[in-house]
């Protein structure tokens, strides 16, 4: 064992070194930021806070228990840094250009400076990280206790120790002060925590060196050559049957996501980034660092399994193996390595989370409820700085509390991966935000919120192993016995590793909601602008929103507000270009933009915007500028869409035009046919008249009888001509809706009888029998009796003229009831061919069976007349013999129909 005082002294010396490095770093940064401080090497080393004590001690433990199961935690980040280099480069560049303060700030800024998103991310991050901090405290306390245990380290590591909470408390307090001293010196997050980063880099070197030395020592002195070590490895360790399963792949994906989404990783990788050179180097150097870190994991694990008693905790092999071989200084080095891993994680996590808590929860609340005092210029600064300090203490305290409550339980062991899964909920919004223009704030919020709840339900709460929050019964059988709600087999998805199950459900639902809601929501102008600025970061880094969203504010108000946040000195510099004494002058858009950006680097984009909007008196969105800002691709797409829609419109217009042309040609053809018909109908009687007149003129001595006959024909044909002209005019007038007939109530049967009488002579001369049938009571209809008689005459004479039957018969039937009057004129002639049924109502048309007689205008005119009376003229459905026309009229009975005895129909 090592004496506790010796261990504590060593730790204190180490911490003192870290303090001086951090102090030197900060001092150098103030004089000359750059040089080694912003070198890619330091940047890469700072990223190694990914490897906490959990990986430092735990990797060997996992390897000793489950062989290759330790590897995914390293493989994921290696794949992301080498394979996803373009994604990282874009992420880091956007973060740098927009002076992002945290992952919450990044995502909320991308989605239209959405303050709700920032708050949600902060809450998820705190809940996922606090237990993780507890895990570090546990690792530190455990390793300290094992190292200093009076009964000997090996024996101690074989039993479950009651954690020494006072050690944990003092550790937590020490970490708090370090984080507060070096992490919250300045408000401007974007000025970078050079001191902290320098100290973290040193710690990264220490933990790597410690592990490498222990590893080398194992290989060289414990077992001789490496081949021998592996030869002695248990077979089950090297070739476990179920290593590369779902869980293994899930772990790779999850750790790849975590290395980007963990708040502390985002802090060192994006927020602290100062040049592209850094991320370029990190893309190969960080995977190399990870490779070196796990180089000796197997040798140490195998040596531990071979040399240490079976009960010894594999998680502490790194520590106990040197002690077993009586190498206390080596053990101390290993302890310092683990100490480094734990402290750097706690420090950076607490700084990152405190910024998030302050910027996304406390400042917005203070702004909303006007808690920030308004009288002094320093008050806002102090308020924000104090909230950050308080937040650090709060976070570390929560971590300590968590450790205290669950210290001896196994719950902490799995918390690393559970934490990974929690922060993985940021990934869909992060990737979507960088590459997908449609991605909307509501989609991101809903996806993340539901993903977070699923994570809580399927992984986080069950991890307490059947506590008051979620009982063992609920975990085994589902709440209220609902099988499909079992936390480890949600919606019936059973048979999977609980972690893989939780990762699947939370990320799947998260992504699905994010995409679906984004597709159905319409982005606001600010969201559209921010998405363009993020996605097209490599194309337009200098653009800002100042031309898109025009705001009006007084310089005086703006300056006063800026002073309160960034201090009078910085404010003076910011406003140095504005002439003094013009307090009422309206601030330029450019100045407003500068002020907001500066504020954003202190308190985050969302809070900065809300703060600036307090002094803004007027805000308008320039749609034109927004369009201009949209990337070329988007413009081209919009343009081509417009073209497409225009060409569609043109096509539609062309189609309409074509059909109109067809109609016109049709009408033209009808007109030609009409004229041709008229010409024919006029020329035929004219020919008779001309021919007989010729005869009469050339033969003055024609016998009287013949002369009379010829003159009669001439007269008849002249009348026929006149009738034809009348019909044409009549039809034309009706088609234009012009005729003015006297309208009265009359008995339609009287018109029918009158028509019958007129046709009797014709019937007799043609040898056609007429038969008249009456059914129903006498009724009155509204219309013109003469016109109706004309229709009847037309129909009856047609029936007579076209009847070629040997015993020609025309049946005239009238049927009436209280609502309708029907007259049917039926013959036993040749009937109307199926093809002609509608055609016969056209002008100049005659049925093809018809002998020629009349001009062919009768039926169209008749139909027009009947329709004018509100009735119908129809041809009855096909009959075996003959044709039947029906005139159907409405019976006028109501007084309202009767009252206007004389009126005109138009």
């Amino acid at each position, binding site marked *: 064992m090592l004496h506790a005082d010796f261990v504590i002294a060593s730790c204190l010396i180490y911490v003192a070194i870290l303090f001086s490095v951090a102090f030197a770093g900060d001092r150098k940064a103030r004089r000359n930021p750059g040089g080694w401080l912003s070198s890619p090497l330091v940047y890469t080393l700072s990223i190694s806070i990914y490897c906490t004590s959990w990986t430092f001690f735990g990797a060997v433990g996992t390897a000793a228990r489950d062989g290759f199961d330790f590897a995914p935690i390293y493989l994921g980040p290696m794949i992301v840094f080498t394979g996803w280099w373009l994604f990282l480069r874009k992420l880091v560049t956007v973060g740098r250009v927009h002076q992002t303060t945290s992952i919450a700030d990044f995502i909320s800024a991308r989605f239209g400076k959405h303050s709700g998103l920032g708050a949600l991310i902060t809450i998820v991050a705190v809940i996922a990280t606090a237990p993780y901090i507890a895990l570090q405290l546990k690792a530190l306390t455990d390793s300290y206790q094992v190292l200093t245990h009076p009964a000997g380290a090996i024996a101690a590591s074989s039993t479950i120790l009651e954690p020494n909470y006072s050690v944990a408390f003092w550790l937590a307090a020490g970490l708090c002060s370090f984080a507060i001293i070096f992490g919250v010196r300045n408000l401007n997050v974007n000025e970078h925590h050079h001191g902290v980063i320098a100290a973290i880099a040193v710690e990264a070197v220490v933990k790597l060196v410690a592990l490498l030395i222990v590893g080398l020592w194992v290989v060289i002195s414990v077992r001789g050559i490496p081949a021998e070590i592996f030869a002695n490895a248990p077979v089950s360790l090297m070739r476990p049957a179920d290593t590369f399963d779902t869980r293994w792949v899930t772990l790779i994906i999850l750790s790849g996501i975590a290395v980007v989404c963990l708040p502390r990783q985002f802090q060192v990788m994006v927020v602290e980034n100062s040049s592209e050179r850094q991320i370029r180097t990190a893309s190969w150097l960080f995977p190399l660092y990870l490779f070196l870190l796990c180089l000796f994991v197997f040798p140490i694990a195998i040596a531990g399994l071979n040399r240490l008693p079976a009960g010894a905790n594999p998680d502490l092999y790194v520590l106990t193996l040197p002690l077993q071989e009586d190498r206390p200084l080596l053990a101390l080095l290993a302890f310092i390595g683990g100490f480094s891993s734990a402290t750097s994680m706690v420090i950076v996590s607490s700084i990152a989370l405190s910024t998030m808590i302050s910027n996304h929860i406390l400042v917005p609340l203070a702004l909303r409820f006007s808690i920030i005092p308004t009288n002094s210029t320093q008050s806002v600064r102090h308020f924000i700085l104090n909230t950050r300090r308080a937040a650090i203490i709060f976070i570390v305290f929560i971590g300590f509390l968590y450790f205290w409550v669950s210290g001896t339980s196994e719950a902490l062991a799995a918390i690393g991966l559970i934490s990974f899964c929690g922060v993985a909920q940021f990934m869909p919004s992060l990737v979507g935000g960088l590459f997908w223009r449609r991605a909307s704030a509501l989609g991101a919020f809903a996806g993340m919120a539901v993903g977070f709840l699923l994570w809580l339900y399927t992984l986080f709460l069950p991890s307490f192993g059947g506590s008051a929050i979620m009982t063992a019964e609920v975990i085994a059988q589902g709440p209220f016995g609902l099988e499909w709600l079992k936390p480890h087999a949600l919606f019936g998805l059973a048979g999977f590793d609980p972690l893989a199950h939780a990762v699947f459900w939370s990320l799947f639902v998260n992504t699905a909601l994010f995409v679906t809601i984004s597709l159905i929501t319409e982005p606001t102008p600010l969201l559209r602008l921010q998405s363009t600025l993020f996605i097209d970061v490599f194309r337009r880094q200098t653009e800002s929103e100042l031309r898109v969203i025009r705001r009006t504010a007084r310089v005086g108000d703006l300056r006063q507000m800026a002073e309160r946040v960034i201090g009078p000195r910085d404010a003076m510099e910011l406003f140095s270009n504005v002439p003094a004494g013009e307090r009422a002058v309206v601030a330029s858009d450019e100045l407003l933009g500068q002020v907001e950006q500066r504020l954003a680097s202190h308190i985050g984009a969302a809070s900065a915007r809300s703060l600036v909007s307090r002094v803004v008196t007027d805000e308008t969105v320039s749609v034109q500028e927004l369009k201009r800002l949209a990337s070329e691709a988007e413009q081209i797409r919009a343009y081509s869409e417009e073209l497409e829609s225009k060409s569609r419109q043109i096509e539609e217009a062309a189609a309409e035009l074509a059909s109109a042309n067809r109609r016109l040609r049709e009408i033209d053809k009808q007109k030609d046919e009409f004229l041709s018909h008229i*010409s024919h109908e006029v*020329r035929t009687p004219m020919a*008779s008249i001309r021919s007989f007149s*010729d*005869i009469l003129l*050339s033969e003055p001595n024609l016998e009287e009888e013949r002369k009379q006959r010829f003159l009669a024909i001439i007269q008849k044909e002249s009348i026929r001509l006149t009738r034809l002209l009348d019909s044409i005019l009549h039809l034309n007038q009706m088609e234009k809706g012009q005729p003015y007939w006297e309208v009265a109530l009359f008995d339609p049967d009287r018109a029918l009888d009158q028509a019958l009488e007129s046709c009797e002579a014709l019937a007799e001369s043609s040898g056609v029998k007429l038969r008249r049938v009456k059914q129903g009571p006498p009724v009155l209809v509204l219309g013109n009796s003469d016109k109706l008689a004309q229709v009847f005459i037309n129909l009856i004479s047609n029936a007579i003229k076209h009847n070629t039957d040997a015993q020609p018969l025309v049946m005239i039937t009238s049927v009436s009831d209280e609502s309708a009057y029907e007259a049917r004129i039926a013959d036993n002639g040749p009937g109307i061919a199926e093809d002609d049924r509608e055609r016969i109502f056209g002008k100049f048309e005659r049925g093809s069976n018809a002998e020629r007689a009349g001009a062919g205008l009768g039926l169209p005119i008749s139909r027009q007349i009947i329709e004018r009376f509100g009735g119908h003229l129809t041809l009855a459905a096909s009959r075996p013999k003959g044709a039947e026309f029906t005139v159907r009229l409405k019976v006028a009975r109501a007084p309202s129909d009767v009252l206007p005895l004389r009126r005109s129909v138009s």
Partner: protein
Amino acid sequence: MSETRLLVVEDEANIVEALSYVLQRAGFLVETVSDGDAALQLLKRERFAAVVLDIMIPGMNGFDILRAVRADPRLADLPILVLTARGQAKDRQMAEEIGASAFITKPFSNAEVVERLRSFTGKSQQGEEG
């Protein structure tokens, strides 16, 4: 001298009466028919010196009769006078294309019809015609 037989294909009774009277007075022997199909049968069966042919008639129309007649080698040279109320230029063109010997639109001059038929049949002016 032998009488010259003419066939008048016409469905309008008054015109048939007028033509018959005028052509008989001019010394022709006149047969009349009002239906297209009957007209073609008659033409194939019996010999006529010339034909007066209306276009718009029941059954086979005038154009179809004209085509059928010209397709028959025995009737290829038969003089046919188309006498129609269809007065448009395209009708005249059509009639001439398919082999009408003359085309006169209604109303017509009796003298012109007689003159044409005489020139087709080689029958000289005679008698009381004037």
